[in-house]
């Protein structure tokens, strides 16, 4: 295999890795968007919070695996409290105020990260078991990158099974489809909102945890990722898991390949792709509305 083909193949794999991260964040966002009807501007901040909690937990316990499991749980708890006691009272005020509130939360979390962990970035090592690389024949590839791909795929698959095969998943999908009808059937729609918000936020945190050893930690990592999450939702379609995966992978691979050949243009290309999709399919790739 010649040099160029190897480079393209590696970049393609990198694109799949980052694409799965985008998909994780995007699915969390689309869940919140579908249920609560708000674009969660704090989503990126919760992703960053997940990564920084991992850093702290690894520092305290020394175990990456423990940190990986506990950080999303902490973010889940924080978000559930946030939704129950801060966002829920705002529903009667209208979505503009909820949106503004998530914007304020995003600014507050970002500033708190800078205050607690400093403005300089950190790097974090993958766990010992995932260090080194795997020989894939024509080229070798970092083991941790492959782990991220498989782990996020497994989580998304689990979520998809939960949504499609369980009773609670069905209620959740119904909540995205028609809130009035769901609450008319005697289901506590507000509890559904709380769980949905917590679940979506913990997916963002998990994405932050997984990406931390690859990209490192920066206080502004949340803000940097947020537009991609929004693009994933806009391209993939509302409340659509398959659409989010497809959009995440398309964006990840596009970004990765253009980074190789035209580094300055990689971000711009993504928005170009988004513009083309919106022009040809305004409802998103898999969206019905």
């Amino acid at each position: 295999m010649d040099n160029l083909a190897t480079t393209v193949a590696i970049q393609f794999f990198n694109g799949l890795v980052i694409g799965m991260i985008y998909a994780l964040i995007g699915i969390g966002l689309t869940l919140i968007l579908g249920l609560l009807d708000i674009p969660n501007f704090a989503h990126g901040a919760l992703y960053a919070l997940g990564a920084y909690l991992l850093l702290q937990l690894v520092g305290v316990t020394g175990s990456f695996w423990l940190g990986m499991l506990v950080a999303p749980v902490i973010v889940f708890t924080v978000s559930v409290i946030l939704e129950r006691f801060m966002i829920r009272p705002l529903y009667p005020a209208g979505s503009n105020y909820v949106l503004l509130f998530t914007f304020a939360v995003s600014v507050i979390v970002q500033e708190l990260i800078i205050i607690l962990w400093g403005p300089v970035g950190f790097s974090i090592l993958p766990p010992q078991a995932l260090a080194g690389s795997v020989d894939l024949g024509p080229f070798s590839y970092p083991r941790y990158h492959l782990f991220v791909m498989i782990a996020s795929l497994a989580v998304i698959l689990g979520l998809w099974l939960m949504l499609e095969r369980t009773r609670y998943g069905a209620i959740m999908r119904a909540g995205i489809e028609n809130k009035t009808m769901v609450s008319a059937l005697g289901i506590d729609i507000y509890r559904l909102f709380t769980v949905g918000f917590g679940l979506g936020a913990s997916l963002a945190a998990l994405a932050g945890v997984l990406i931390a050893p690859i990209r490192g930690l920066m206080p502004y990592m949340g803000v940097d990722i947020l537009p991609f999450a929004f693009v994933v939702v806009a391209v993939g379609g509302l409340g659509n898991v398959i659409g989010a995966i497809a959009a995440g992978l398309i964006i990840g691979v596009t970004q990765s390949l253009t980074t190789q050949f035209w580094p300055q243009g990689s971000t711009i290309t993504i928005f170009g792709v988004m513009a083309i999709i919106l022009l040809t399919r305004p409802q998103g790739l898999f969206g019905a509305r």
Partner: protein
Amino acid sequence: MAKLRQRVGGFIPWAVLVILILVLPDLTRPTVATEVWVFAVLALAFNLLLGYTGLLSFGQATFFGTGAYTAGLLLIHQRVHPLAALAAAALAGGLVAAVIGYLCIRRIGLYFIMLTFAFNLMAYFIVYQASSITGGVDGLPGVPRPPVNLYVLTWDIRSGIAYYLFVSLIFLLCAIALKKVVDSPFGLVLQAIRENEARAAALGYNTAAFKRVAFIISGAFSGLAGALYGMLFGIVPIDTIYWVTSGNVVFMTLIGGTTSFFGPIVGAVFFIWLAETVSVRWERWPLIVGLVFVFVIFFFRGGFVEVWHRAYGLLARLTQRGQPKYGHSKD
């Protein structure tokens, strides 16, 4: 008589504005006072979308920044007339808004918000990457403030207070122009779209086209505000095109009140006052601003407009005590 009172009543806010313009430099530094009117232009332009058309654009910094960089580059490299720089900034803001609006207005509601935001970040990344032209993250320094040459007279706007008057004048002209827009038949259609887009469409209006034009007008005025901002500080910081600026505009407009034409101006005054007060005390001042946002959202939701209405209502009740206006009063 009622008509006369209505006409006089319509002038009161303008009179208050002129008084405020005249007293503000005595209350604070000229730079801060100037910033107030720059952001007032931006907030008014934004409210054309949020308050009058019902469109929440979360990317107003795109046009603000576009205008700031356009004017900055023209002033630095071409030494153009300040008014030409303002016109170019408005044109550039309007053009960018035309493109982004064309794409974003295809999607409604939440998608519209997210897309305007995503395009805002794209614009930011472009400016960030093109650092050889824009100065990247350090901003574009050395924006001059050449004299305003009007054939018969030349207005030197280099001093802080002269520039303050220049910006105040531009602000008043923009406010009058935007008031004309919202009171025009075009503005009424926008309000009809806000109230019920399906019904407006059923009446035969091409609502998407109206929204696009509103977006372009808003973008043009935002670009103009951006140019004023760059000339104020002699530098175009990259913050002008950053998403937090977009969020701040949403905040100042909501806190001022979207239901009144003048509400966003009050919001701009409050926001600049807040930012100036806390930013000199602590480097991490956005944290304080964020906490104030939360406080306002929970306890001060209706904005200053509501406070005004309540105070006005209280005043009216006090002055009319003992002579109930309506027959069904219980006491």
